[in-house]
């Protein structure tokens, strides 16, 4: 195992692993992300590809707060997102619960401070989120949704590109305990 690979796998957790984010930020940041998802595409059409609630969930999970906290955090954001949609409540909740769990699990294995790792994980979880939602919609709701893989891959790249500066901003919003 090379030094680089070793550093990627067993490197230090994100700086916020020991930080405590104020509770208000735990509520405000997802709310802002959901507001962005609801409100901004009305005026800026090309920003509809952004999945900020997912990125906030991934960021929270990669911050090393544990899988259980990430599970509930993802479930909370997903349920709020479901509440503002016409779908049955729980679709986004299940998906983001899984994302939170897997992201939190991965953050224990990889150096999530590395931008490349952040980019790849963001791209992967976006694709997983969209694909699993499509599976749930077909399996549970029986909806004949189309899954446009190239478009999903492209949007995954764009979201991963947005995730890099976004995670930097969210890291700066942390308040040291």
């Amino acid at each position: 195992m090379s030094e680089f690979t070793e550093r990627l796998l067993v490197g230090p957790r994100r700086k916020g692993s020991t930080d405590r984010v104020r509770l208000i930020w735990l509520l405000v940041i997802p709310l802002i992300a959901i507001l962005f998802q609801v409100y901004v595409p009305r005026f800026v059409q090309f920003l509809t590809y952004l999945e900020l609630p997912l990125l906030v969930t991934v960021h929270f999970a990669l911050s090393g707060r544990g899988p259980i906290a990430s599970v509930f955090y993802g479930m909370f954001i997903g349920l709020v997102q479901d509440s503002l949609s016409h779908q049955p409540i729980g679709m986004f909740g299940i998906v983001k619960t899984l994302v939170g769990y897997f992201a939190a699990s991965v953050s224990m294995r990889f150096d999530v401070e590395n931008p490349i790792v952040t980019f790849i994980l963001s791209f992967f979880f976006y694709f997983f989120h969209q694909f699993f939602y499509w599976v749930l919609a077909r399996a549970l709701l029986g909806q004949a949704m189309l899954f446009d893989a190239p478009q999903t891959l492209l949007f995954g790249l764009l979201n991963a590109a947005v995730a890099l500066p976004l995670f930097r901003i969210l890291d700066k919003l942390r308040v040291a305990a």
Partner: protein
Amino acid sequence: MEFFLSRYRNLTVLLIAIAAQLLLIAYQIKSNRDVPMLRVWAVSAVTPAEQALNFVRRYTWGFVEDYFVLLGVRNDNEKLKQQNGQLKLENHYLKTELSTADRVRALSAFQANTPSKMIAARVTGNGTAANSKEVFIDRGSASGIESGMAVVTPDGIVGKVVFAYPMAALVMLVTDGNFAAGVISQKNRVRGTLKGLGHSDCQVDYVQNEEKVDPGEWFFTSGDDRIFPKGFPVGQATVVRSGKTFKEIYVSPVGLQGGLEEVLVVLQGVHQQIPEGEVSTQNYKILPPPPDSGTEAPQGTGQPGVLATDADRLRDQYKQAGDAQHHTFGEGTPGSTPPDFTKIPGVHAGALPPKPPASVAAKPGASQPTTTAPTESKPGAAGAAAPAGSVANGAPATKKPPVARTQPEPAVPIPPAKPRPRTPILVTDPTDADPGGEALPPPKSEKPGVKPPPRPPGQ
């Protein structure tokens, strides 16, 4: 069990969370019922923030957006103003072109319908001499133009060529102080000399006071000056009044009205007849006379108008005397007593009672006329206005109104003034008619040994 939960706590929590949400979905699908509580909570949490965001956007980004919109409006306004200015210029240019085309068409029609040989020219500039009314035209001796040639427009005469250069010519306008031309009135065929005054009007000089010229009467070129062919319109008399020696007749030249841009130079003039009837002009409209006025000057008023003559004033005095004595002119029978003209109001002040009895005024031989001058030239009015001798003879008085002057006491009969012969003022050279004017070169026909062109009958 406890071991399993403690060892796979994370996975257990995940499974529980997934299972709970699956049950929630199953419940919603199975019962076809929603979970309004969660939705209300979510919407209640999001809506205030959304409203606040909308408020902030409206008063921040909205202002910025409106600002940029206004910037666009201002730019659009500037563009529209610029476009409007360009369109105005284009419109003005097209109107000018259209007007030029109309004038050229009028010149061509006039040139085709006039027997005189003419050449069209365009006015290119003004003369530089002080107080002069001169213009340059773009035709010169190369086009056959020579000094002394007449310059006209379809409306009337414009002037005459004073200098002919190869490519240009200098034209003295009719309003120039040194200009003179022979004219004749349309209605009464009174001849005179048109002289420029240096401003917009001209004067017809050398017309005797006894000559009859009506205000508004047209004047035409008489052809006497050997420059302008006979029959070209000159203008209408705007002011006609008696002067010390000659009548003061002012004419507004029609050839210069409406601007001067294209003219016609008469290369070979042909005399024409003076047209009868009204002369149509493009820019000068004469209103019809008032219903209660005749062709004569205003009468019956104590204060004569500006255009009234001495004869009019004298007739007015006699008419007042007749009215004071309850005498109606034109109704007297042969042998009846005429009014007492020795008591004319204003002349014999105090001699005439305010309202003399009719019997006194009608008494035969009560008074004698003090003048032999008839005051009415109309046949119908001759019986009463004519002197006693004429009335006794029963002959209608057809003499022209005399230039009689009332005298103080005692009243002396004024012999009728002999009408001066209607001698036309023949002006063969404008310099003869305007002694003070600058000597102009004579026209070609004035060269020694060259006979003048044949005059039409009656000239």
